[in-house]
């Protein structure tokens, strides 16, 4: 079992369910929520290390959720995931502190690799913070 906790935020339930199942099958501690609000709640209750965040969601969208996450827990790493390749939202996400920006569909292994890298960065930054 890997040491990090992952939260997946996506309004596409089929996608959400499947990816959660697949990650759990790989012994990763993962939970999934279907909106930005629920993501913020989960942030408080389970404090995930890495959040995979869909950009385009009804209600509170990815960029807004990212902003809130960074406000509440700046050290939480966020990987943006989208079916849309708008350069602006990508740049905006990176400026707001997202770790990376991936386009759907993405191979699970690729995604997992990014998650690991994000977690490593988190560890480094936490280490610096504790000094």
């Amino acid at each position: 079992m890997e040491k990090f906790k992952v939260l997946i935020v996506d309004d596409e339930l089929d996608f959400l369910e499947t990816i959660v199942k697949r990650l759990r099958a790989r012994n990763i501690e993962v939970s999934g929520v279907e909106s930005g609000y629920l993501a913020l709640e989960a942030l408080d209750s389970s404090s995930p290390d890495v959040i995979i965040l869909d950009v385009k969601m009804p209600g509170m969208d990815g960029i807004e959720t990212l902003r809130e996450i960074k406000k509440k827990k700046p050290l939480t790493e966020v990987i943006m995931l989208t079916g849309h390749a708008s350069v602006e939202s990508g740049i905006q996400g990176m400026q707001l502190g997202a770790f990376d920006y991936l386009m759907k569909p993405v191979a699970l292994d690729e995604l997992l690799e990014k998650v690991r890298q994000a977690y490593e960065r988190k560890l480094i930054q936490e280490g610096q913070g504790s000094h």
Partner: protein
Amino acid sequence: MEREYYKKLRWEIILTILAFSVIPLLILGAVIYYQFNQSYYTKIMEDMKSMAENHSSSIDLFLDERISQLNSLAHTIPLEKLRDEAYLEKVFNIIQARSRSFLDLGIIDQEGSQLAYVGPYYALMKSANYKDEDWFHAVMSTGVYVSDVFLGFRKSPHFIIAVMVREGSRSWILRATIDSDIIENIVRAAWVGKMGDAFIIDSEDILQTKPRFGGAVLQPALAPDFSKATVPQAEEIAVNGDQGLFAVGIIKLKKWVLVIREDPRDQFTPLLRTRSLMVLIALGGVALISIGAVLSTRSMMNEMINMERQKAASEEMALQESKMAALGKMAAGIAHEINNPLAVIGEKAGWIKDLLKMADVSKNENFQEIAAAVNKIEYHINRARTVTHRLLGFARQMEPVTEILNINTVLEESVAFLENEARYRNIDIQADYALELPMTASDTGQLQQVFLNILNNAIDAIGKDGEIHLKTRHLAKNNEIGIEISDSGPGIPKEMLNKIFDPFFTTKEVGKGTGLGLSISYSIMEKLGGRIMVASEEDKGTTFTIYSPVR
């Protein structure tokens, strides 16, 4: 139609310029010539008139002198002495010594009998009696008489002057014969130029001197009748269709008229020369103006056509850009809508694959089939993903962005778009990319548009079965990247080679090409700080070389 319009406009401008410059020029020339002609004509006429006056007064003066001579002779020497022919001869010799014009002298009494005579016709004249002659009566009544010219016994033109003297109750006459030569000489001096003529006529229009051309003494004159003229005058008169300039002077003592005739061709030669010169200058001026009008109009029209073309091209380009932008937006929308379900399918397939790894499932007899199917699904998801990602890439490129890029990659992507089309037409695309190409700041989308345009043209030029060679290299000298795109098509004829970057130039069928591709590509490369060169050989192919600066 457009060409017709420009042609018409061009002629309108040329004709307007010509009208507004040639008409004043011609009017100016005509007015100056007319004025010059008038004053020249007047001057010639004045000259002729004064010449006629001068010569007629010379003749008057001559006659007057002769009369005075005779008068003073007759009044100073008494008749008794003059009757003596020896004395008369002495006197004759004295006056002849001063003036050779006297031919003879005679003394006549009031009955008309010759009292004494000195001269060459002594025998004939000695006993002559003049009492029935007109001139005798005339001199008896007026005191002085000058005859018209006659031939007389001498058969040479001469005339007589007679003066009457009263001595107490009787009168006598001193008569002298005068040679016409002197008068002829005075008149002859008025023969001007090669065609000028001058002669004297009496009051009956009978010639008193021999004219230069036509007619003889005592014959009617062949010129218009001026015998009734009383004042000097000058005019132009046509005689038998021949223009002649005539001037007359009055000889007052004898009511003779001196006629001077001149040929206008002689007199007006300078005027005619001036006229030819003016016509020549006017023609030269008109020619210069015409050339100027045509040349300036041509350059003006070219400028106009160019401007119009550029305008049309930039409008077309703007339209093209907005079209591409709309297309980009649509492509992005489609890609997004497809990517989400694709992601779900991908995850589901991945989940199936995960499940297949579990031990109990692998024992299922259909395990292999399921695994193969899932792999196929993943393969095709990947394929669809390539398409949507390319579409999104295309959409992104519609927005002008400067980014650090590798030209090889951009070219590769552009080729990927056309690979299917090329394969379809059996066109082999061979790439020779420089391995160590420096990265450069440029615009992927714009570069791709240029590459696509030229590649498309290459494919169209080949049609079927052929080769396209791609080559990239770094040119250290100018620090730029050269991209060569060569096709094995039919090539571009030399005369068209310098037109291919013109807007709306196309060799494709109507409706197939806008004729803007290369023009747009050219301006894109200019905007990106690069350029496009073309080399072509008929039947061998065409090579476009795109130069992009390394920045």
